[in-house]
């Protein structure tokens, strides 16, 4: 009756430092810190559990340092968790905790299932390789070998992300911030990912460019029925893109629910502060 989540995360914890038995107990919103008073380790996120369903856009909102981006880095296998499990609902991987796979298998999943777009384009792009080359790189690691196919696919993606196709051989370093973000999105979509992670993708862009990027994401999501996790500190972005959201503070989830419910009937004091802080 109910569909199974496409991605499931259980008890995800990341502690930077040596860690101790008290790290998780003495940190979090109630303690108003994410630094363990005993061992001084930083608890970036602790006991994070959530599900992502097919075609759903899930928001993660919270202030800087609340652990939002750490979660995406963990899910993208950029860093290893201290504790936790992650599952994807595909026939060959069902029931397997992805964090326990070897690095080769993880890379394979990353290349074929996940698309990631970072706040800073230099994290997702090779600035001194042409736009076409950036997209081709992603296709090559997903085992596409035919050059003319790759070129055609890159052009398609540029059109899809509204980048002038005549700029396919230009270097991203010569692009504007908004355009670099589009290239990142094109690159992330190249391998037709199952899930897309967006980490503060409109932060630092001017308003009209922000709006265009958000509209692009919305259109692409609708067209491909993508499952997306959107990390943002901007309530407007969360309101526009997501149907469900998670609110984080000091590494812990303080509230989770339907986005309209969180914005109109926030339960936790921090969420109330966040919502009332909107300009």
């Amino acid at each position, binding site marked *: *009756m*109910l*569909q199974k989540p496409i991605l499931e995360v259980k008890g995800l914890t990341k502690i930077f430092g040596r860690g101790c038995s008290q790290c998780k107990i003495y940190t979090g919103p109630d303690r108003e810190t994410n630094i363990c008073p005993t061992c001084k380790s930083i608890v970036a996120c602790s006991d994070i559990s959530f599900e992502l*369903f097919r075609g*759903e856009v899930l928001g993660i909102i919270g202030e800087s340092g609340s652990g939002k981006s750490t979660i995406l880095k963990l899910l993208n296998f950029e860093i290893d968790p201290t504790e936790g499990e992650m599952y994807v609902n595909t026939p060959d991987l069902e029931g397997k905790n992805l964090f326990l796979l070897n690095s080769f298998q993880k890379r394979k999943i990353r290349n074929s299932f996940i698309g990631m777009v970072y706040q800073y384009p230099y994290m997702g792009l090779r600035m001194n390789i042409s736009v076409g080359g950036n997209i081709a790189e992603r296709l090559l690691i997903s085992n596409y070998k035919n050059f003319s196919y790759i070129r055609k696919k890159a052009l398609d993606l540029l059109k899809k992300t509204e980048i002038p196709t005549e700029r396919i051989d230009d270097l991203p370093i010569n692009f504007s911030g908004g355009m670099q973000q589009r290239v990142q999105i094109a690159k992330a979509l190249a391998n037709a990912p199952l899930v897309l992670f967006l980490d503060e993708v409109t932060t630092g862009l001017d308003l009209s460019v922000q*709006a265009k990027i958000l*509209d692009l994401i*919305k259109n692409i999501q*609708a067209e491909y029925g993508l499952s997306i996790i959107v990390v943002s500190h901007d309530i407007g972005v969360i309101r*526009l893109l997501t*149907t*469900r959201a998670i609110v984080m503070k000091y590494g812990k989830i303080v509230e989770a*629910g*339907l986005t*309209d*419910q969180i914005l*109109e*009937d926030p*339960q936790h*004091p921090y969420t*109330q*502060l966040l919502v*009332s802080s909107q300009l």
Partner: protein
Amino acid sequence: MLLRVEALSKVFKRYIPSSVEISGCIDVSFDVEEGEFLGILGPSGSGKSTILKCIYRTYLPTSGNILYNSKLYGIVNIAKAPEQVILRLRLSEISYVSQFLKVIPRVSTLNLVANALLSRRKVPEVEAIKKAKDILERLGVPSKLFDAFPSTFSGGEQQKVNIAMAVVWKPRLLLLDEPTASLDMHSANQVLDLLKELKQQGTTMIGVFHDIELMKLIADRTYKVNGGYRDGFHN
């Protein structure tokens, strides 16, 4: 029975700027039969909208049950159902017309209404656009506004777009929060005619109306929210 509200209460605990409890609605109980129009009456601030928002789950009920007899899942307690279930119901059965237009910015009026249908029902795009046009025309929205963004519209025009978006996909349960509040008599009647037609086609409705005379024209029964229970602010 399509919907049964049992001892529904909503108390808002607010921590900002200072700790306060505000009661939205207290001990509300009613049944709504399939195909019926239930009007909700009560003075301003008596919690009428709160009841509707609890049924749509924009507000989390504090206590009580909201039993909805859904096509998809059978009886669902909206007060406690998983978010995934609520989202599915919002996409296939339950629609809500808010007092104020809240829509995705930078989308034209016609596309907003057509998308409301396209995202919920399997219809060809051409047909969705045609239906959207029909409904907007019936509500008296001038066709020159179809390609404009509704954020620039008058209050009445925005309200019409709001209603068009909710009505176009023929929901099974329609929640109406002051659907005629910012409309003149002529426009209000256009809305009522459209709602009556939808009702005849089987849609069950719960509506909060500002104007009792208007409500009498469409409601089969009314539920009075007793403002007397309302204690207002207390710490």
